[in-house]
């Protein structure tokens, strides 16, 4: 059944799709027809509530795992898509990345197999945003530990004084998207919050009043 044109008018008015002349005419119709006016107001309320309760953005759970998985899959696809005789100019452009990706995936595969075979913890994948930093992992049978070595990091200043804590428990505040770390006497020590770029900021907590 086709929607009658009057119903189209109603939603066109609601969604601001009418020109000024049409708006004026429709407003006059509503003034003359209380049922139409009531229907328009009810629809407006639905729209308002939908926008209030269906946010444009929602915090993605496991956001960093999400990103790292994408990077892994992209690297895997780069390797799989490398077929002789089907190269485009873009493949040639990407060749260094392709070679690096192939090597990275192959080496990672070997390491994972080794670590897993020895029954220890396993580093499945790593990603260092700074291109100067190299991350490599291996399992040390002697130490009974798995190692993630980061080379190329900037040194910590020698006069650095480390601030340490005795943390007893933590609490997440989901509305405010913060985590508060409490000390041995339940005093708040630190608040971890994220800034607009999703970077964590560790702030001294204000003592409870």
């Amino acid at each position: 059944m086709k929607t009658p044109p009057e119903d189209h008018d109603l939603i066109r008015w609601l969604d601001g799709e009418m020109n000024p002349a049409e708006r004026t005419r429709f407003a006059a119709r509503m003034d003359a027809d209380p049922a139409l006016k009531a229907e328009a107001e009810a629809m407006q309320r639905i729209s308002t509530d939908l926008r209030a309760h269906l946010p444009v953005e929602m915090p993605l759970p496991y956001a960093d795992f999400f990103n790292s998985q994408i990077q892994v899959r992209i690297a895997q696809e780069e390797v799989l898509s490398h077929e002789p005789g089907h190269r485009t100019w873009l493949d040639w452009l990407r060749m260094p990345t392709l070679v690096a990706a192939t090597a990275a995936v192959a080496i990672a595969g070997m390491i994972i197999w080794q670590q897993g075979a020895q029954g220890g913890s396993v580093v499945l994948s790593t990603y260092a945003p700074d291109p100067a930093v190299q991350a490599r992992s291996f399992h040390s049978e002697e130490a009974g530990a798995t190692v993630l070595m980061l080379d190329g990091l900037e040194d910590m200043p020698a006069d650095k004084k480390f601030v340490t804590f005795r943390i007893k428990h933590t609490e997440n505040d989901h509305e405010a998207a913060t985590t508060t770390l409490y000390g041995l006497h339940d005093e708040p020590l630190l608040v971890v919050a994220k800034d607009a770029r999703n970077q964590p900021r560790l702030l001294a907590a204000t003592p409870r009043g």
Partner: protein
Amino acid sequence: MPASTAPDPGEVPDTDLVKRCQAGDTRAFDVLVNRYRNRVYAMTYHMIQNETEAWDLAQEAFIKAWRAMPGFKLDSSFYTWLYRIAHNVTYDWLRKKKIQGDGEFDDSRTEHKVAAGAEAVPHGFLAPDTALKNAELGKRINDAISKLSPEHRQVILLREIEGLQYEEIAATVPCSLGTVMSRLFYARKKLQELLKDTYENAA
């Protein structure tokens, strides 16, 4: 146009990042993922109302965007282009589910009944004397959205959440302007029926 998605001043513009992606820079793509993952996730979640699946579909959307990057001519904003990919991925998934007989949605065959003013009986709502809190209104709204068919859910979300004009909705779906208007009208009437008790209780 979708609501403003301009990066903060001082941030690398999307077009620069896209060009770097097209040259194979996966780190540039990581920045774009960071920038838009929450929006894409919201969109997939609203469409399918399931966290786990929405997460997977959002990821699928980004992977498809990476694959399609060489063909992106920068003739629209990156987000508009990404949004269309995410929307298609989600809608295809929903339709596949419907074809497989998941039975969650009301069939569009009922459309004419609603237009004639027949009452749709909502299921599982609270007893009339239970007070409603704002958080529960949100839940009821999400429940109501999930009862719309994919076609109706699609247009209402494109209009109310992404803020697209009718012509943009018609281009995204794709369908005629008349179909956009009919579906919007039906979807709003249906939501009105589904939320009738909710609004009466809150009054």
